[in-house]
């Protein structure tokens, strides 16, 4: 990329961001808006610095829930899609279910999980919720990757008299790896968002959403301090997973 | 340039004078698509542009259509600057992929240029009916493009290009995606349509028989940089029809064009750049 290309790619977003914060700050100043209504960016920043330790603590709680649920979801998603590619019956039962689950606001089952699992003293319901969401994303994508292999490759393998197991290992699985990374990129921010939303449904008094919730009646700069925590967490998940995806893609292109 | 058809009109349909086209100038990806090209197309002529990939034949067509502006030189259509000719809708255009809009019926596709020109609804319907008759698809107007065969789609695209009766038709490998049988059939149809409507045609192709069969003149181009290396007059005498393809004169012209193309290949270093 040329130097002017870099300036264009980084410059315009930077310009937009600075302009946005500037206008926000100016509006708050010009109309003398109380921090209870809308805090200025500068006020948010100082609230964030002031409460840094507390925000960090809640961020780690939510982050841990998201991460554990994320990893479990991947493991189960991959296992299930491997299973369904071998057993067609399972696939035809699970796929319509996965499509339906995608269309419904499945987070509403958090209260049930809370009740089932002593939610008031445990982070487990939240992690299970994250796991469930990630599971479906991974399952749908990896199944697609295992299934959408080139017909030529399959015919070739058949001409080698390869067993289904060998076909899975040599053709289907390598094809599905890219899909897995894509699924991870899609699911990573969802994991954070789900972990966060699950906290709203009650349960243990910890995590970012609890922080936001407790600031409901207070000054909004505290709310925003937690929003910063949530943003950093979500972005981290996204950047790491999309970085992994790109790393894998790059390796495939050069190899 | 040779003067072939009788000069009925003093105004030339197309006049390209010293046109050059350079893409990505000043970067490592610089491509000289056309270098100092002169081309005259007399009114009523059928002229084909033929040459290897990267010879700039499609670029030349786009200069005439004013879809691209030459980096140097001048392009005049019907005696006007190309940009004005585009605004005045002095030409119609057809592409390799029929480019029909899949959300419009065949009739609605033909109607589009008339709609954009602000024609009255009744007049539009009338003209669409005429055009459907012209391309021999009178009862296909209400069909969606995907319900038509490849050849039928291309006929609708030609009808669309001719809907506003432009004096000039620009075609970019319009039959390139058709099978050989359909292709030969469409070529004859095109000749009939052009004879009936007195349309001047500039036709880009890389099929030698197609160029010879259709054209009054075949303009041979070569790559690296794109330029015109030869112009071959095709006089086959009388009306062309399917029998023309069997005549010795036809084969003779094919050989002539092929040799001109080989010669241009020798002189020009093939650069393997796509010509669009």
């Amino acid at each position, binding site marked *: 990329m040329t130097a002017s290309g870099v300036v264009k790619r980084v410059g315009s*977003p930077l310009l937009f961001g600075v302009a946005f914060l500037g206008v926000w700050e100016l509006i708050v100043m010009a109309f003398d808006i109380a921090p209870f209504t809308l805090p200025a960016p500068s006020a948010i920043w100082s609230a964030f610095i002031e409460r840094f330790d507390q925000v960090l603590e809640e961020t780690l709680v939510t982050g841990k829930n998201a991460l554990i649920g994320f990893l479990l979801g991947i493991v189960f998603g991959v296992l299930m899609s491997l299973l369904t590619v071998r057993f067609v019956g399972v696939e035809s039962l699970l796929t319509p279910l996965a499509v339906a689950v995608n269309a419904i*606001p499945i987070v509403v089952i958090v209260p049930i999980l809370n009740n089932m699992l002593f939610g008031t003293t445990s982070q487990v319901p939240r992690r299970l919720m994250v796991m469930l969401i990630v599971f479906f994303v991974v399952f749908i994508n990896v199944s697609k990757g295992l299934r959408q292999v080139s017909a030529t490759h399959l015919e070739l393998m058949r001409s080698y008299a390869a067993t289904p197991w060998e076909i899975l290992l040599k053709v289907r699985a390598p094809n599905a790896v890219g899909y897995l990374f894509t699924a991870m990129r899609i699911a990573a*921010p969802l994991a954070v968002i789900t972990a966060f939303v699950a906290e709203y449904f009650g349960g243990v008094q910890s995590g970012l959403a609890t922080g936001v919730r407790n600031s409901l009646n207070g000054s909004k700069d505290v709310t925003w301090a937690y929003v910063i925590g949530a943003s950093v967490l979500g972005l981290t998940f996204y950047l790491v997973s999309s970085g992994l995806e790109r790393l894998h893609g790059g390796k495939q292109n050069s190899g | 340039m040779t003067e072939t058809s009788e000069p009925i009109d003093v105004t030339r349909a197309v006049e390209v004078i010293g046109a050059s086209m350079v893409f990505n100038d000043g970067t490592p990806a610089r491509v000289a698509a056309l270098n100092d090209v002169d081309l005259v197309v007399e009114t009523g002529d059928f002229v084909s542009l033929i040459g290897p990939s990267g010879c700039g034949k499609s670029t030349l067509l786009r200069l005439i259509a004013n879809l691209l502006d030459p980096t140097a030189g001048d392009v005049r259509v019907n005696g006007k600057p190309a940009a004005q000719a585009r605004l005045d809708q002095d030409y119609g255009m057809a592409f390799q992929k029929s480019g029909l809009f899949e959300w419009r019926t065949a009739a609605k596709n033909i109607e589009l240029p008339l709609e954009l020109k602000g024609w009255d609804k009744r007049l539009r319907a009338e003209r669409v009916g005429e055009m459907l008759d012209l391309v021999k698809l009178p009862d296909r107007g209400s069909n969606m493009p995907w319900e038509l065969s490849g050849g039928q789609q291309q006929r609708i695209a030609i009808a669309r290009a001719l809907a506003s009766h432009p004096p000039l038709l620009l075609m970019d490998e319009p039959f390139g995606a058709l099978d050989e049988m359909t292709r030969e059939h469409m070529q004859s149809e095109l000749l009939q349509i052009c004879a009936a409507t007195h349309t001047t045609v500039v036709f880009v192709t890389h099929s030698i028989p197609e160029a010879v069969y259709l054209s009054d003149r075949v303009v041979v181009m070569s790559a690296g940089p794109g330029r015109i290396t030869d112009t071959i007059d095709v006089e086959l005498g009388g009306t062309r029809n399917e029998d023309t393809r069997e005549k010795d004169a036809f084969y003779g012209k094919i050989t002539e064009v092929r040799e001109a193309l080989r010669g241009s290949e020798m002189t020009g270093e093939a650069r393997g750049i796509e010509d669009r």
Partner: protein
Amino acid sequence: MRVGLAERALRRTALLLAALGLAAVAWEVYKAIGPEQGGDIFGWRIIPKTNDRVMPHVWEMFAEFGRPAIGSGDQQVWSVLLGYSWFTLRMAFAGLALGAAIGVGLAVLMARLRIVERGLLPYLVISQTIPLIALAPQVTVIRGTLGLPQWTSAATLAAFLSFFPITVSTLRGLQSVPKASLELMDSYAAGWWTTLVKVRFPSAVPYMIPGFKLAATASVIGVIVTEITLGGLRGVGFATIDYSQKVTSQPASVYAAVFAAAALGLIMFGLVVLSESFVMRKRSRETT
């Protein structure tokens, strides 16, 4: 072609029902053999309790719809939930409409001006990686200051969630018009807006539909989560929380509320699918 589609939909529905049936059987089997008070694995409390209070029988869940609802006089659960659902659905619609207006507007703006696309798109992507619902308290305060009715908070947050898939899919659609189509419009000397209306939008439709599907689901989620976060909005989301707090008296009510929420999501999704088959009715199957 119609028949084929209907057949496939029917088959899918049958399979879905079969899957749900199997899940119900698994539920009852676990309830019969699982520990009443749950249990631990490796110190994690992940063995669910099976007593009637948290795992009612499947038939209890359905019977619940006909029982009087807690805290609603002698009104039955189904009619209370119907009222809640209607409330939530309206807010979701408002949110989806707002999200669609913003989403399509932004896409057009970005398609028109490269600088806006370059400057804004990264932020839109970032905005989807963070729980925007965290802004609920902020949104509700501003709503209060502007004197807007309470439901507009939920609609705004639903719009926050639903605009993005619409923006991205619309932008992609507007930008993936075949080059020949654009050249054709150029050859007609048609302006940008004419090209937008006559070519870019129609050819973007197949791209926009998946975006709207995601957005429809997102709008329901946005409203439900807002109800849970803010309180005061008595919709389906509120019902799940409310009933789960009164779980001792009527445990199956929570499940009834969850079914209602699921139905809402499916209804919204179904509406988009219906409008898809209407909009795409004349297009070839290959283009979809």
